[in-house]
């Protein structure tokens, strides 16, 4: 199968996705915002479908922008609700996530009823279909991955300082609000990018599982970053290969199952000093 160009595109696309997701995921995990990926992935659905309805075709950037806007907006809305209301974080997340997701599914049903809707395979958003990745998609993935990696590299000191001690970051005058906005944007970018391949429900696993797995065996952020990348590459490779061999299998769930098995292995080889994360 490695001779088949189609498979190679799928494989390369998933690998790029894995790199982006794990790089951003490390910081999302360290800020204890692991559920934000879920809020964003579920909330991007209405935006993506509207992007599709506007163009009448699967235009990558229109879908991306649509998903980015509603996903990002939902995350900011969640943070605002937590800040100004008496609601706890989990309640606020549950409310926003389900409302946006519900709206998305309604729009999706409408879109599929349209004459041009069916063959677009919009339902692949839900569980993911890596096999649908084309060489064009992979080109876009390469651009997005380069952007995400560049932004993380540029802001890494700031991200680490804010994640470790945001009070101190404010005390030395860092623009903490803008740094958090940047992280949310990077996370939204990675999630929206991955949703076609992995699906709304499980994309956040590709963000968080590598970070969690790497945390079990590393003592520094540099180690975490490289281990997380390795784990997510294994996950996405496992997912694409298996769903290529068994075409009926959706990619997203296989990626997560592979990730789950990796986590068990890593747990057995964990560092004793990281006990807290068990």
């Amino acid at each position, binding site marked *: 199968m490695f001779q088949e160009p189609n498979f190679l595109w799928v494989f390369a696309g998933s690998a790029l996705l894995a790199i982006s997701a794990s790089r951003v995921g490390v910081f999302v995990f*360290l800020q204890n915002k692991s559920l934000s990926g879920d809020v964003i992935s579920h909330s991007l659905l209405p935006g993506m479908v509207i992007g599709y309805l506007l163009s009448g075709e699967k235009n990558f950037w229109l879908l991306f922008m649509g998903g980015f806007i509603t996903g990002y907006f939902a995350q900011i809305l969640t943070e605002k609700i937590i800040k100004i209301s008496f609601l706890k974080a989990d309640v606020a997340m549950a409310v926003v996530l389900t409302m946006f997701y519900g709206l998305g599914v309604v729009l999706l049903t409408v879109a599929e009823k349209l004459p041009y809707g069916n063959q677009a395979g919009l339902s692949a958003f839900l569980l993911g279909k890596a096999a649908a990745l084309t060489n064009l998609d992979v080109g876009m993935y390469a651009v997005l991955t380069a952007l995400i990696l560049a932004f993380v590299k*540029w*802001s890494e*000191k*700031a991200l*680490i*300082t804010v*994640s*470790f*001690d945001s*009070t*101190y970051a*404010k*005390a*030395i*005058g*860092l*623009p903490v609000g803008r740094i958090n906005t940047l992280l949310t944007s990077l996370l939204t970018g990675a999630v929206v990018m991955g949703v076609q391949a992995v699906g709304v429900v499980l994309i956040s696993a590709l963000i968080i599982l590598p970070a969690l797995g790497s*945390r079990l065996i*590393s*003592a*520094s*952020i540099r*180690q*975490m970053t490289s281990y997380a990348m390795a784990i997510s590459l294994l996950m996405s490779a496992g997912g694409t290969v298996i769903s290529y061999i068994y075409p009926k299998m959706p990619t997203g769930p296989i990626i997560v199952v592979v990730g789950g098995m990796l986590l068990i292995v890593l747990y057995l080889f964990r560092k004793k*000093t*990281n006990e*807290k*994360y068990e």
Partner: protein
Amino acid sequence: MNDALNITNLTAGYLGRPVIFDLCFTVPQGVICGVIGPNGSGKSTLLKSIMGLIHPMQGTIQVLGHSIDQVRSKIAYVPQRESVDWNFPVSVYDVALMGRYAPDNIFKRLKNSDKEATLKALEKVHLLEYKDKPIGQLSGGQQQRVFIARALAREAELYIMDEPFAGVDSVTESAILKLLKEMKQEKKTVVIVHHDLQTAFDYFDYFVMINRKLIFSGQKKEALQPQYLFETYGGGLPALDRIRTAGNAREEIAKS
């Protein structure tokens, strides 16, 4: 020379509810100043207001003669140790290096002088040999010293410290004390929240006593009067009783 701190009519708190009321005091430059008061009296709130982490509801705060935003590079802040997750995967050196960070270099490469100042600060708190250890593997006292190293690396003029002596053993305590004396010699100003009244009068030469309101601010010799401690702590402290008994005994002896 400007005062290190010049605070007028400061009222501050959280969610519209004031915690400290109408504080007015100054702290001159070059002193080691103890901020004394019982739990919940608003000491940390005062420090957070000075650092601009919470906005005053009323009043003004001048730091080294300016508003805090203009002089942040000259101020080092040490928060209470419990305010961070010590399991975070960074090394002792990484945290100390944060002392060098500022808005104008955070998105750039650091200079060699930043690295040198960080290593020097780690040496001063005797943590050089631990520099590559994850902070989670340190004892509580060593963690406190990492925070102090981060402040020292800043090479600031004014140091604002929230309970740097909390939970450290006597060896670390005297090491920190030695650093304070060095800082005083270098004409730096240090403002420290401190809990132990027994040692406060040995460590500091200037005092701010608060209990939601200002009770006293000024030089040590005036601060020693028991009435201020009474007002600050509202009585009921064994240490106070001892100070009072000692005072009474001295008076008795003087009378007889």
